[in-house]
């Protein structure tokens, strides 16, 4: 049985990381030059790790499935990145960021990891600015901050609504610099399909060149999986079309435990599904909830236009249920409340699966303020509206434009229609303090691992974690492993283990191609997504999860009987790529349901209907569930659970309330 050792260093919280860094064994520069590291992924985590390790002297091979490393899905992050800089002099500190993150994660993360994350956060901003990342600035030339996700301090750094893009392009430029210097070899349009394990250690990967279709064998003294999140198991999510679990899943099948698979974040404000053709969902920044009021009609199936529904026939359900926080309740609470109304038959729009986010009230309020500022006496309603719209435009202009592009509706005149959507996965490969999985030499960074965010991630903290892992954690922790490995020469890729792994990957491709059934990969993906969304989404219960498990098994069986992939393997074949990913999602989906079934408490993004307070709020059960669920793969549909007990020395768990 695999024993879980989190390897959190001894000693006081504040000195654990410093002490660790100053006592780990080092690899001398000449040895580094003969050591190779494989990195799967070129998002914030992968690109930052690749450039940092190459700068140290390691030989790096980096892989991504897009045509360029710059297109990893980190590019799409909008809002910002947290760092405990305290530039605003408003009382922020490493400790406060640590505290907020542990609490925000609903007490299901490790104190030691989170403290380190908060500690290195400030260095990230320094590094990015030095690279030329154009963060927003004040008139004095200094960096600007905003508050995000309900924290009480302003610690979020941002670049308009394109923070992820700018951070990734910074990391990408560092990566490309090393490519130019010959220390990183980049393999774009490559997909990792197998991990190679020799004598119990990760020693390489099998990757498919997506253009020629050929399988390749690559050796590495260590392998880093930075392959992103698996939200696309739900089919519809805010993730990119290609985001997948394949890399992590192959590792899982080779012995890496999977941590807290059921912890999923569902973001409350996304543009709703408009029809069966829908291929992905688009986020509307959470900041809109500052000025938008959320409501549905009080009457079921009310087909009037929203503007024609009088005030007293509207149900501002968040304000009604949570008078203290109103429209600003946390993401998980807002999402569940929207679902509750729609399920009860009060949803709006053609699909009836949406609620209104209405700016009319605050438009008029801003209009009055403006009228006063400009000394306009007795303004008409029309005048007030116009003045108010100018203010709204200045604050949210680009979001309103994006909304109009997608829906064809003008949100200045009509309330937006929004609905929650899958956004982020807190679960992932189990890693210890050094970011190593349970397979020696196999690491996982960024959204692909399970660390740091517990059961719920706070806004602006995923970018921080990805870059912390890549720039400031792995360059140290990998040394502790590689220093013991300096006598290992590069293993030739005709070693039996490489041949076996390649054969495995080949057989799987053959198997997929040879089904020759009648239905596309998307067909099965949509079916799986629906089961996941209905039964393992915003609210979960024992009956639904049990049903989901058997339904997923049935879809999986049908998939392996009736899938159709046109074309051949030995060429660029987008259907084959999709099918491989869906096949892995079909296994992961079941594990997520198993995990959700076992965790009988509600916590963070995981809401078990059986575990609520009398007024319908999430109820945690620390006595029985204060642990990380780490699953060991045994066979298709069979797992063994390992528990890592969570110990809170500093922050004491309490129940959250927003009434």
């Amino acid at each position, binding site marked *: 049985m695999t024993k879980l050792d989190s390897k959190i260093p001894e000693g006081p919280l504040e000195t654990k990381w410093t002490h660790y860094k100053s006592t780990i064994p080092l690899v001398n520069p000449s040895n580094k030059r003969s050591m190779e590291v494989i990195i799967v992924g070129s998002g914030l985590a992968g690109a930052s790790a690749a450039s940092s390790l190459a700068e140290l002297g390691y030989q790096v091979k980096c892989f991504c499935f897009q045509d360029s490393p710059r297109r990893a899905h980190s590019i799409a992050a909008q809002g910002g990145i947290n760092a405990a800089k305290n530039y605003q002099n408003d009382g922020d500190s490493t400790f406060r960021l640590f505290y907020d993150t542990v609490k925000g994660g609903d007490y299901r993360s490790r104190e030691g990891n989170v403290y380190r994350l908060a500690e290195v956060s400030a260095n990230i901003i320094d590094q990015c600015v030095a690279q030329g990342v154009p963060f927003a600035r004040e008139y004095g030339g200094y960096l600007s901050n905003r508050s995000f996700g309900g924290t009480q301090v302003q610690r979020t750094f941002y*670049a308009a609504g394109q923070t992820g893009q700018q951070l990734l392009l910074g990391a990408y430029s560092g990566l490309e610099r090393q490519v130019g210097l010959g220390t990183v070899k980049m393999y774009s349009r490559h997909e990792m399909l197998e991990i190679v394990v020799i004598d119990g250690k990760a020693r390489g990967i099998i990757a498919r060149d997506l253009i020629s279709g050929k399988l390749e064998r690559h050796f590495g003294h260590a392998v880093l999986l930075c392959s992103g999140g698996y939200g696309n198991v739900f089919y519809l999510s805010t993730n990119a079309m290609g985001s997948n679990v394949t890399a992590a899943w192959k590792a899982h099948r080779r012995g890496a435990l999977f941590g807290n698979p059921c912890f999923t974040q569902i973001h409350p404000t996304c543009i709703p599904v408009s029809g069966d*053709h829908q291929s992905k969902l688009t986020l509307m920044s959470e900041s809109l909830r500052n000025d938008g009021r959320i409501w549905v009609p009080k009457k079921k199936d009310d087909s009037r236009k929203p503007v024609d529904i009088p005030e007293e026939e509207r149900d501002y359900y968040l304000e009604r249920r949570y008078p203290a926080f109103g429209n600003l309740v946390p993401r998980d609470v807002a999402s569940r409340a929207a679902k509750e109304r729609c399920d009860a038959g009060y949803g709006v729009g053609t699909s009836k699966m949406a609620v209104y986010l209405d700016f009319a009230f605050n438009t008029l309020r801003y209009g009055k303020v403006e009228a006063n500022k400009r000394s306009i006496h007795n303004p008409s309603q029309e005048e007030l509206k116009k003045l108010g719209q100018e203010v709204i435009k200045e604050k949210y202009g680009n979001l309103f434009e994006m909304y109009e592009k997608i829906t064809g509706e003008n949100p200045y005149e009509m309330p937006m229609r929004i609905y929650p959507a899958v956004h982020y996965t807190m679960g992932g490969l189990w890693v210890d303090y050094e970011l190593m999985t349970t397979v020696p030499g196999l690491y996982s960074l960024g959204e692909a691992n399970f660390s740091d965010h517990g059961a719920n991630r706070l806004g602006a903290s995923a970018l921080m974690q990805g870059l912390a892992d890549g720039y400031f954690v792995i360059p140290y922790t990998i040394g502790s492993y590689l220093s013991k490995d300096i006598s290992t020469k590069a293993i030739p890729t005709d070693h039996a283990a490489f041949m076996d792994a390649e054969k495995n990957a080949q057989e799987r491709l053959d198997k997929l191609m040879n089904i020759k059934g009648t239905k596309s990969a998307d067909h099965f993906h949509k079916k799986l997504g629906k089961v996941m969304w209905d039964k393992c989404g915003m609210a979960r219960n024992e009956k639904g999860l049990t049903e989901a498990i058997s339904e997923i098994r049935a879809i999986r069986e049908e998939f392996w009987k009736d899938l159709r992939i046109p074309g051949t393997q030995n060429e*660029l074949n987008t259907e084959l790529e999709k099918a491989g990913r869906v096949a892995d999602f079909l296994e992961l989906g079941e594990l997520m349901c198993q995990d959700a079934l076992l965790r009988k408490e509600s916590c963070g993004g995981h809401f078990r209907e059986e575990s609520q307070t009398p007024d319908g709020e999430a109820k945690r059960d620390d006595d029985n569930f204060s642990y990380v669920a780490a699953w060991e793969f045994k066979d298709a549909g069979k797992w063994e659970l390992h528990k890592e007990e969570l110990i809170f020395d500093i922050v004491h768990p309490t129940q959250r309330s927003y009434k």
Partner: protein
Amino acid sequence: MNLTLKIWRQKNAKEAGNLVTYQVKDISEDMSFLEMFDVLNEQLVHKGEEPIAFDHDCREGICGMCSMFINGRAHGPAQGTTTCQLHMRKFKDGDTIVVEPWRARAFPVVKDLIVDRSAFDRVISSGGFISVNTGNAKDANNIPVPKQDADNAFAAAACIGCGACVAACKNSSAMLFVSAKVSQLALLPQGAIERESRVLNMVKQMDEEGFGNCTNTYACEAECPKEISVENIARMNREYLRANLK
């Protein structure tokens, strides 16, 4: 709506390609252009034919992966919009739509509508960075940047590397793309140190990749989904001149 599509099909880089006509029915105006392609591809798979290969990933207009030449325009008829953010309400029932890949010597076709844009990565790796190793940096606020410069740098940095500027240009010039990066870094004090070597190396690489010369037609700016300004080209020309005079 019902549409006639004429789409470029090309098996691989070596074989010749041609336009093939397809019909799609009951397209909703709420669909994105790529979702319309999903419908067509689902039909093709159903018939056992190979679906049309096209590049896409984020479908939010930010990754720069989508790249279709639609009715003679890079990313289609809508201003400041990527292919993935183009919606079918921009078209009418009965329309015929011609879809081709980016055409440029430096962007060879890989398959159907997919082209090889790795030349852009090589241009960046020749100098589109600031040489700072992880851990070198000092406190971020030690480098104040005038807001105007920061805003201009940000506007240039908004480029998504899609290549529409090259596809739109009759000379297949990459000036808009390259100048956006040169400008961003030259405008910032952090980037000023390497400004000469940067512009010289990047322009050299750009030429080696086979991109054409700029003859100031401004087709690039007109088709750029991020509305990157041709002022960046002027700025790069000044940077280039300055570096050569040194």
